[in-house]
């Protein structure tokens, strides 16, 4: 995490995109299931952060 490593970060980013992008033959229903699950996880995390806001460390 220091300046000068942009090319390495770009390669790591591309590697992650290659690994995580669903294959072209993934059924749409499966993509939607993953998206809905991800959305629920994101919302859950947001609520957890909001609940904990009053106990935030300085």
């Amino acid at each position, binding site marked *: 995490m220091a300046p000068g490593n942009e090319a390495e970060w770009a390669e790591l980013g591309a590697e992650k995109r290659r690994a995580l*992008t669903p294959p072209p033959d993934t059924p*749409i*229903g499966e993509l939607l299931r993953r*998206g809905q699950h991800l*959305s629920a996880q994101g919302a859950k995390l947001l609520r957890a952060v909001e609940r904990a806001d009053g106990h935030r460390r300085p």
Partner: protein
Amino acid sequence: MGIADPELDVAVAAMVAEDARFVVIGGFSVIANRFVRATEDIDFLVPDSAENDRRVLAALRRLDGVRLRDDEPLQEEHLVDQIHLRAKTQAGVIDVMRGGLPPLDFETVEERAMPADYGGVEFLVASLSSIVGFKRLAGRARDRNDLIGLAEIHGELPDEPIPGLNED
């Protein structure tokens, strides 16, 4: 009622049960085109049809929908002859909107849409070309981010003239 997480399978099941005509657009259509990300709501594109609007309202009522703005129980005048309705439902926030000018009119978007089978329910999801048009037109930061994500997956994106964007 607080804001529920978006449950597309529940929302489309209600729309199909009421025989409503619609195409899924917005975040879930981006996801269906393989850019899997989180989304906060469900977006339906609907035709200009009072009869269909009544079916959509019936579907939203099945989901205990109220108008988000003021928690008002859904009335016909909230959608009929309107261009947009945002409802709070048991399946999350649902945006119902009309199409624009071709190629972003309802008929063209519907004709190009992809069939989806999710939770045992069949319905239509906007194709890549329609999504790109909507995103270019909206032009918010999150839309530009979606276009970048979709381009990483699909390569060069469709680039057809959009009224209001490509006028001399």
